[in-house]
């Protein structure tokens, strides 16, 4: 059975660390980093990348449009 895997790319320097994507993620992939970006914000990153299903909910709620979402289909045993 094919399984869906996703990944997100966050534009770290534009992220304002509002954490709306963190609560919008249904599989709890995203979290705010301990490190800060150039403006002093704790940016969002994939803390749990294996769980991402590429649903793009994080991208939809991001007020600063800093999230790109990628998705592939993989075989379950691959």
């Amino acid at each position: 059975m094919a399984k869906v895997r996703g990944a997100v790319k966050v534009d770290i320097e534009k992220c304002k660390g509002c954490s709306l994507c963190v609560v919008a993620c249904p599989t709890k992939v995203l979290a705010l980093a301990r490190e800060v970006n150039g403006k002093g914000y704790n940016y969002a990153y994939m803390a749990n990348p294996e769980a991402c299903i590429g649903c793009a909910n994080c991208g939809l709620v991001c007020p600063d449009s800093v999230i790109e979402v990628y998705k592939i289909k993989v075989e379950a045993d691959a």
Partner: protein
Amino acid sequence: MAEVKDIIKEGNLVYKKSKVLTDKIMHYCPGCSHGVVHKILAEVIEELNIQEDTIGVSPVGCSVLAYNYLHIDWQQAAHGRAPAVATAVARLLPNKRVFAYQGDGDLASIGTAEIIHACNRGENIVVIFINNGIYGMTGGQMAPTTLEGMPTSTSPYGRDIAMTGHPLKITELIAQLPAVNFVTRQAVHTPAAVRKCKKALQKAFENIGEKKGTQFIEVVSTCNSGWKLSPVKSNEWMVENMFPVYPMGDIKG
């Protein structure tokens, strides 16, 4: 298991920033609803392929600088006068799709006359009304839409109905006008709400393309700086307190 670097490839892209948005970093506070509305507006303009034909009218308020963020033609209006300016633009350039983008202090307070009369004439424009119950830009003062008992910088003990009146439900008022074609109230706090709001915007822009008259979209929003809450807590507060007073859904059309 596929590696993250193998997934992040051009061919696998499913969601990215709209081309109608510029690369400027928005001046809005972290978590501001304006950013989400700008984004879905850009997506609707891109999907309907009307970038060249859309003219926005920005208000006074935080979104006064909206012209920096969307690659379309813009006009900036005096406080509350966006519907009047949009009327002029829409009448002079009837083939363009014109929208006014206003906040609640702009639309429901100083601009009440303009919006009521523009809607009463049934001007062929889209009005996007961002309602966060506060004057966000100037420091969180009480607006006509502020909820009863809601503390603001000019009503620190909460809004007193006896002194300042009830929260103004201007969307319901406008829905009663016969010339208005489509009136809806949306929010952008969850992915599902964002999708629904985008659908409403798309319908409104299609309707003005068919010259159906005024389209009015209220977006119940947050102002986390003005409300003194985190962005996530603001959304929770909005669902708990704003939604009972400003219920979601289509009111007309």
